């Protein structure tokens, strides 16, 4: 590579800016895009290696924010809506925390939501498959002690379980509801912050 130093810097700056603009994409996609654009710039400029050509090539690609936006409108919106994977949603939100600290709260709430929802679903399933071993366990001795919890493993005492098999639909519906709301919160946040960022550069 025999590019003049300032041209090299212009290219590096452009690619770094593009990378920043694409940070809410999956790591792999982001690298793929940046490397492809790098190859394009190098292909168009090594031959002449004159600074004017570099400027021209970068101008033809458009500002990094504009270019990133074209990738985003085509690809990311769809993915954020379609992928219900908690890991992907959480990963995206975590990236957004670089833009706004408030998304950190969403990240924590989403993490909790996925945990609570997941545990409820598991409890519901356990009760369905092991009705005798699993269930609600409430110990209540008047004026002395009260303890409530979920019991699994040891033989279950039906006297301490006021709702019995009702636990299955309650846990499954509640768990699924919480998981769904958490997912909606995550995708809503991702879209909202992407939009507000777009407006900024519009």
């Amino acid at each position, binding site marked *: 590579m025999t590019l003049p130093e300032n041209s090299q810097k212009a290219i590096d700056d452009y690619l770094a800016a593009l990378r920043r603009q694409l940070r809410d994409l999956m790591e792999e996609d982001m690298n793929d895009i940046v490397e492809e654009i790098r190859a394009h710039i190098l292909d168009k400029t090594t031959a002449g290696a004159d600074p004017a050509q570099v400027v021209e090539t970068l101008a033809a690609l458009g500002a990094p924010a504009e270019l990133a936006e074209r990738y985003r409108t*085509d690809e990311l919106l769809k993915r954020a809506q379609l992928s219900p994977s908690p890991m992907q949603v959480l990963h995206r939100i975590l990236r957004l925390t670089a833009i706004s600290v408030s998304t950190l709260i969403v990240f924590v709430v989403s993490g909790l939501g996925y945990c609570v929802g997941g545990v409820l679903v598991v409890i519901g399933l356990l009760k369905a498959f092991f009705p005798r071993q699993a269930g609600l366990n409430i110990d209540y001795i008047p004026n002395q002690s009260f303890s409530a919890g979920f019991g699994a493993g040891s033989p279950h005492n039906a006297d301490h379980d006021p709702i019995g098999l009702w636990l299955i639909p309650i846990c499954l519906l509640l768990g699924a509801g919480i998981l769904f709301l958490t997912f909606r919160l995550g995708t809503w946040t991702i879209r909202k912050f992407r939009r507000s960022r777009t407006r900024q550069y519009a």
Partner: protein
Amino acid sequence: MEENLTINPESADKWEVQLRKGSLELAILAALWGGRLYGLEILRHLESGSDLVVAEGTVYPLLTRLRTLGLVESEWVESDSGHPRKYYSLTAAGRERALEMGRTWARFAASLNNLLTPLNGAVKKEKP
């Protein structure tokens, strides 16, 4: 009422932009019909084979989109230039889609040309 009849140059330009945008996808699929190409080769192919003015910043995102749709696939290939290049080729679904779009395009163009016959005389007269 009369105002609505005057041609707004801005909206006419927008129409042309949309038209180019809409046909670019088919043009790219057609460019790959003969075998794999990398981004810049596709761009040069489009520029040499037509008067489509193609913005470079449009083609790369579109290629990524076509890949997401499963119409093209890509692979990184080392080159003599010192950096790898990302080559695109049509998938089976891409070939099918290209044929289908090509047919639709031909049908559409024929129908529209038909509808434009009343304009023909006027369009020719306008030319200096």
